[in-house]
């Protein structure tokens, strides 16, 4: 099964289970949770079932294309089921079967792993799903987002697509994954990985010394001001997107060692305040 087949199979499975198939958020994020289809939809009482792929950027995990398991950018397949159906674990296992993983032939386990995102003011209870010792999915019952209690409770399933593809294709390096017939992951992504790593680790970037950090700090501040203005104006979607821009800039500053530890906490807190403001405004908006 190719990488693209895996995406198609999961999409078809969840579409047949009543999910709307959404598209990735078209700005840089660290995880599918940040997509408004998750972050906003889990708030408030409205039921919602959705699935989508989310390319996710983790600047600190960039390895210049040299590490077979770590990537600057990986792909998550994200599913939100609100409310969480009673049979959600079984449905999830059925989705693995749909991709050609037969639970009876493997050791599949749900091991405690609670999820928390300090920048989003969000946390949940759940498991990492272990497949023969490899974590392939994060399974979370959302308890709070944007600092707000959630009712009903949503189930969030986040599949690590590269990991599942590596298992299905029995390859030891992510770059050996067959993306499409005759096309390797390497062909699609390697150069991207190398250059993105050089960028975030400020290695050979033609900027005067010290400018790299300053430039991104300024971007952060500018986006932050805009996000606040948008939030004041009641434009919640754009406000969230600019909050996410800040979150990504923070990740770059962090990965490139441009901020100290104390400053780091302050940055997290600022993004969190925005996220909380957005969540509150969203809930108030839907209530009225």
């Amino acid at each position: 099964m190719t990488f693209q087949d895996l995406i198609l199979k999961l999409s078809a499975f969840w579409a047949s289970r009543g999910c709307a198939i959404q598209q990735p958020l078209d700005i840089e994020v660290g995880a599918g949770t940040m997509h408004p289809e998750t972050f906003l939809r889990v708030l408030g009482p409205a039921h919602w079932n959705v699935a989508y792929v989310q390319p996710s950027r983790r600047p600190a995990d960039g390895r210049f294309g040299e590490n077979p398991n770590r990537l600057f950018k990986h792909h998550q397949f994200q599913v939100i089921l609100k409310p969480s159906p009673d049979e959600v674990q079984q449905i999830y296992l059925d989705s693995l079967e749909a991709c050609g993983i037969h639970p009876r032939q493997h050791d599949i386990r749900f091991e405690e792993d609670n999820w928390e995102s300090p920048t989003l003011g969000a946390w949940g209870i759940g498991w990492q799903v272990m497949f023969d010792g490899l974590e392939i999915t994060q399974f979370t019952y959302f308890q709070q987002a944007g600092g707000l209690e959630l009712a009903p409770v949503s189930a969030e399933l986040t599949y690590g697509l590269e990991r599942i593809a590596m298992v299905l294709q029995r390859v030891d390096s992510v770059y050996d994954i067959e993306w499409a017939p005759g096309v390797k992951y390497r062909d699609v992504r390697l150069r991207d990985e190398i250059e993105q790593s050089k960028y975030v680790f400020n290695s050979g970037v033609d900027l005067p010394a010290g400018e790299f950090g300053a430039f991104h700090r300024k971007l952060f501040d500018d986006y932050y001001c805009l996000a606040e203005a948008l939030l004041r104006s009641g434009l919640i979607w754009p406000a969230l997107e600019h909050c996410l821009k800040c979150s990504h800039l923070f990740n770059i500053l962090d990965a490139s060692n441009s901020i100290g530890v104390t400053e780091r906490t302050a940055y997290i807190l600022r993004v969190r305040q925005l996220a909380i403001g957005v969540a509150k405004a969203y809930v108030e908006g839907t209530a009225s």
Partner: protein
Amino acid sequence: MERELLLEIGCEELPASWLPGLTNQLAEVVVAELQGYRLAPETPAETFSTPRRLALRIARVPERQTDLEELVNGPPVSAAFRPDGTSTPAATGFAAKQGVEVAALERLQTPKGEYLVYRKRQRGKASVDVLPQVLGGTLRALTFPKLMHWDAMIEDGRGELLFGRPIRWLLYLYGGRVVPFTISRAVAAQSGEVQDVTTGAVTYGHRFLATSGRAGHTIKVRSFDDYRNRLLENFVVLERSERHDRIASQLDAKAQRLAGRVSRAVHSDSGLLHEVPDLVEYPSVVAGSFAPEFLDLPDEVLTTTLVHHQHYFPVEGEDGKLKNAFLAVINTEPDNERTIARNAERVVTARLRDARFFWEADRKSSLESRIERLGTLVFHKKLGTYKEKAERIERLADWLAREAFGASAEIAALAARAARLSKADLTTDMVREFTELQGTMGGIYAREEGLPEEVWKAIYFHYLPIGVEANAPPARVDLGKAAVTWAAVSLADKLDTIVGLFAVGERPTGSRDPYGLRRAAHGVFRILVDLYELTGLRGRPSLGMLLDGAREQHGSRSDVAEFMPALRPFMLDRLRYVLDQRGFDVRNVRAVTHELTLKEIVPVDSRRKLEVLPEFTESADFQQLAVAFKRVRNIAKELPADRFEVLETTGPVLMWSEAAEKALADEIDRRKPAIESAVSSGDGYREAFKQAARFKPVVDKFFDDVLVMDKDPLVRERRLRLLRRLEALILKLADISEIVAEDSKSG
């Protein structure tokens, strides 16, 4: 089976670490609920757990509640009847509330007067009518380390039901019949796929395995024996001990096939074998291997990767060296052993490859060169960076080695070197990835750099000790030449943390101890109490001296007067905890750690006193002396301590009018040298207590013959002064009034 109660709470996978506690709790909670509903079980509760179920069986629960008889208090008789004997509204109102006539009320004589009462008799209900509430109460009463919302409610007036994980089914049988009960779902969540959970007579087997048909089908159950057997048929081993034994024996067998054994490191200091039975319902073991070249990594890295990250067991050869193999406990039948092992190997290899990358990258910079980078790592916002901490403990370790331990300048310099480098590994990639290896990695990198054993081992072990038991690691033999340097670095690190955080107001409160100060203090006392066994040092440093040394390194961070008073009770409590944990009698521990000042707290002396004290405390004479001493202490209070000081230095020489006075004074003079010598040398406490025990007859005679509180103020003061002298002398050993046995205390 007729009166058997069987309960199974079917859950989505519960965290392994919760299961042992929950299993105990379930028995306690159900029995308490049954008793509360007057259905005290006739046989003990047996409880079981797997990741997907909490189960309880009680062989015999009564068929009916016991009848209830209680007295309901009404108004006083004086207010209940008019002089003509007719009842007042107070009486009729009370009777009406109870649903009876006034004539049916009784009178009860109480210390406060005569009252009207109603003797309420309630016939016990049939158990089946009460058992639903028992389950409701049980679900409410179970506590979890972390609770979750799952849109569930119980109709008991308390609304939402939080739980550890969502409940998927409830098996609840009494005498083989289902006891009805329902967990309903929040309106907001109601949909075709979110349903109420109602009790039934069915359970579920293993998620993926079944003897016949599709896994996950319902299994009908009639009794506990039936339940257990049907579960086993469906690949669930209910008893934890049985899962444990299966795992242990398969581990041994598989390890033998690899010509090795399960690494002893795992058996002794990690809870892995303790944890895995709670991760599986139907365990088996598969063996995997990794490329031999990874054996070049330090054992600690290999073990951490396998044990902490993958829950796999490392295998070692007869020579004690790790093999390039591991054993994985899986939750299924192993007919696909190879596939599963191959996948596990792939995960292990990926992790080891990462570790090797860190191992090679980290060694490109020396620990010394990393110290600058510590300047970017904040230890605490008011206490500065780890660089500053490293500099403080460098000076402190040097001082401790010389002043507190009396070690040579050479050793002190090595201790200082180790302390300076002890935090440098926080900047390594390996520790960033495997945080549990902090200290350990620093030690290994120091060894790789060729630093002497006194230095690298001191770094390696400096986060220890963690346990307070006498055999908690590190052991003397593991410390080798580094025993003294290690003790200095470990103490310096912990004292610096405790003093620093107290100085900036970060004190532990209740269950909140985010900086682990209690654990740090336990480490301090474990080292001090066992200083000789751990290091061969005979030093007896007082806590006051050590804390002063640590405080000096913090400069004028905070007003000492502010935090030292809070630090003293904290440290005393921790010392008592450590001594209690060693199995010393709680009263004796209190006696030797009474209201000591920090300067008087010499942990190793406390331990030595406690080792001889039980030889005395059981004797009747000593017990009586304790009672007498309590009296001494009570009366001696009449003379303020500062006044006593003045009198002892500038007051008149004591002259005796009574023989008993003189006898006591002479006795004090006679016993004083042995006691004082023991206290100052830290040796001979047995003799000292023996001397103290001999005070009894003269003290008794003194109290019999002499009235301390004489009306002549001079006589009174003189006698009080004598008692104060006695008190001061005995207190040097212990506050033996703490030893008074419970029954004579109340008398």
